[in-house]
């Protein structure tokens, strides 16, 4: 187990290295110049050239990468060009907000997605099953920005029961205010995941329910609730957890649009602005943080497998 963990951790290094090369080259090869964007229309061409020189943008790409990667290894993510502040603390501050949003979305997706999936399997081929799967299909099909804006129009502007944007009221607020502000973005972000989880849970459960050991359990007189919630769910959970792990990654990355719609001060929103301004250090730092969390989530999912199914061994 320990060896396995060490091996997996060692594997993350080349992955992160590859990601860093990919992000770096994609950004630098894309058209657009940070100096142009930063200086704005009132700058002289000489000022733009000076700034390019200062930012080291005139050096060969490989030298720029080397310098950046060398500093990253030492924990120095550089300074944001736009915010004129160290990247890492700023990225972590926003990442914390993204995690709050993701956690909210995940809670919604797990409770509603898995819950509805189980019930749909239990009441297979009933009206409930069909209705649930229809709603799930709609959930998968609706893009986040549409759901988000529709939610604002209905609940914030129409019924005026929920705030339209931000994490807290403008004048400040407590945990309770945070929850009010979280509700719409979390549901918007979690809707697609909930729908996917509902469908996956249902099919995984249906598959398990048809197996011999379930028939045996029923024959032994185990109550139907126990059969569904204990025997079947535990065995279906490998599939569910795999998909769930992937969904966490999706939620972290997918928060970009939700954060923009609801002005949620997270990493996604920060990254969009950084990309628009070609703020290379911020984008690169942000992507690395997201990539790292993705890698660790996958690792965690693999470890959970063993706990769910003791037959799985790591070597």
């Amino acid at each position, binding site marked *: 187990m320990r060896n396995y963990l060490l091996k997996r951790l060692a594997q993350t290094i080349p992955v992160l290295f590859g990601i860093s090369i990919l992000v770096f080259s994609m950004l630098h090869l894309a058209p657009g110049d940070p100096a142009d964007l930063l200086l704005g229309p009132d*700058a002289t*061409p000489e*000022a733009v050239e000076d700034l390019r020189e200062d930012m080291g943008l005139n050096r060969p790409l490989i030298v720029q990468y080397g310098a950046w990667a060398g500093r990253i290894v030492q924990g120095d993510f550089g300074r944001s060009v736009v*915010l004129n502040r160290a990247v890492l603390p700023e990225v972590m501050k926003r990442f914390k907000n993204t995690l709050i949003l993701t956690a909210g979305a995940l809670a919604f997706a797990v409770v509603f997605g898995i819950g509805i999936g189980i019930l749909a399997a239990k009441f297979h081929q009933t009206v409930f099953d069909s209705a649930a799967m229809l709603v799930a299909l709609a959930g998968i099909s609706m893009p986040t920005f549409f759901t988000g804006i529709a939610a604002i129009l209905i609940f914030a502007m129409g019924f005026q029961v929920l705030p339209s944007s931000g994490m807290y009221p*403008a004048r400040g607020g407590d945990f309770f205010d945070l929850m009010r502000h979280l509700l719409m973005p979390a549901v918007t972000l979690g809707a697609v995941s909930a729908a996917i989880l509902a469908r996956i849970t249902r099919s995984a459960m249906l598959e398990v329910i048809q197996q011999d050991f379930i028939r045996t359990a029923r024959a032994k007189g185990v109550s139907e609730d126990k059969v569904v919630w204990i025997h079947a769910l535990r065995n279906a959970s490998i599939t569910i957890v795999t998909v769930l792990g992937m969904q966490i990654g999706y939620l972290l990355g997918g928060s970009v649009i939700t954060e923009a719609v609801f002005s949620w001060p997270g990493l996604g929103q920060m990254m969009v602005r950084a990309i628009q301004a070609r703020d290379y250090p911020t984008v690169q730092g942000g992507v690395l943080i997201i990539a790292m969390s993705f890698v660790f989530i996958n690792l965690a999912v693999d470890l959970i497998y063993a706990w769910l199914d003791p037959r799985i061994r790591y070597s």
Partner: protein
Amino acid sequence: MKIWNSGAGALLATAAFFGAAAPALADETIVIGLQAEPVTFDPTQISDLNTSRVVHRIYEGLVGLKYGTYDLEPRLAESWEISEDGLVYTFKLREGVKFHDGTDFNAEAVKYSFERQTDENHPAHGSLTYRGAPSYLGPVDTIEAVDDLTLKITLKQPSGPFLARLAGMTVKIVSPAALKAHGDDVGQFPAGTGPYMLEEWEPGIRATLTVNPDYYGTAPEIEKLIYVPILEPVARLSALTTGEIDLTIDVPFDSLTELEENPDIELQQGASAHVWFVALNTQLSDPPFDNVLVRQAMNYAVDKEGIVNDILQGTATVSSGPLSAGYGDLQNKDVRKYDYDPEKAKEFLAEAGYPDGFGGCEFMVPESGSGMQAPIEMGTYIQANLSAVGIDCQIKTMEWGAYLTAYRESPMMAQMSWNPPIGDPDIVLNNLLNSSNFPPGWNAGSYKNERVDELVSTAQRLSDPDERRELYLEAQALIAEDAPWIFVDHGNQIIAHTTKLKNFLVSPNFDLVVEGASYED
């Protein structure tokens, strides 16, 4: 808002959770919804409008703008004298002014603040990433603190726009003590002399300003300003109608009617110095944009009224030159105008030798961008108008960041807009149309008219406003005749606020000046 208390039952909690979205407005505090969060509080490092809308409250320059206008008025300088030859500016500074950090404002402070930008060996020079000094302090030769309250600035050559430039953001005066104390991080610890000071800043969430108790001028009536970023226009609108915010800018065009009918909201449209145009590459013979008749034909072919009314919903005025009505008497209103007339366009094309029009023209359009209004809709409208007279253009859209770079590489035909931060025509006529600013400068169409060059360059060296005005009027007439651009529109600023906010005036430089406003509950 503290509704929750430990004794409340679940029912009460639910009621509160879904209860009224708008907390009751506290006295003398207003909440302002910006399109994006402010990024820094160092005035030298700002090139975006939303940040300047906040930072203008905190810092001041030697001169300022009169409320709601582009007219200059004394600010940190009480008065000034300009020498006969236009080279020496002597400023008499205001007495008894203190920075927010408690230190004294004086001539040395101005010198320190300016030389930070102009002198590469200055101890605080390293805290600059973006150097706006060439545009603002470029003409400066020496800066001398004659005594505590007298500052003498000597220029290398006379400069007409210099005084107006001193009202700009980059040259606002920063406390030397703050620069020494905070170094590179001065952008997080602002200390200016303005009527408001920073109380709290939570990036991405809010920036709170509070009134400066030691302000030398008239104290603002509104005690606290809270700025919140709301990126999505619909959310901004929703926040305004539910009372979460009190004031906002750039509401979506299609919701204007709805807001006009709302008794709790006042909608203000104000002229600005904005200009929106399509630059034509005047050096190009295929397509024949080097032919003035062709460029004039294109101006006749485009239905600018249609664009203003149908796409922009009346939130702009039709343009007939680079300067808008926001410039007051500096705008030449008697220039040649190109009213929509496709028949005339065809006649001009025939006269130019293209009776059937021409093709092969690539029209660059950004997907979005500061001041670009509705670039894609306007681009396709123009494309259709041109096609109707036989000019076939292919639209090429680009993301704004990539677009700005491509725009400076001699495009064939490209949209652009300009939001001048100060009210001097130089920033438009010289930057965009003087042949000394050929690409990679901002004269993207490489327009060259020797007389225009001479007029604009001479005006740049004069300091007498009346003399300068004459030259600018003549230049505008020539530019209209030459039609280096398709002149399209000047956008209005659209500001929506609660009717409880009184005496708020729209400023032509896109600022949100709340110092003169009051709040009545």
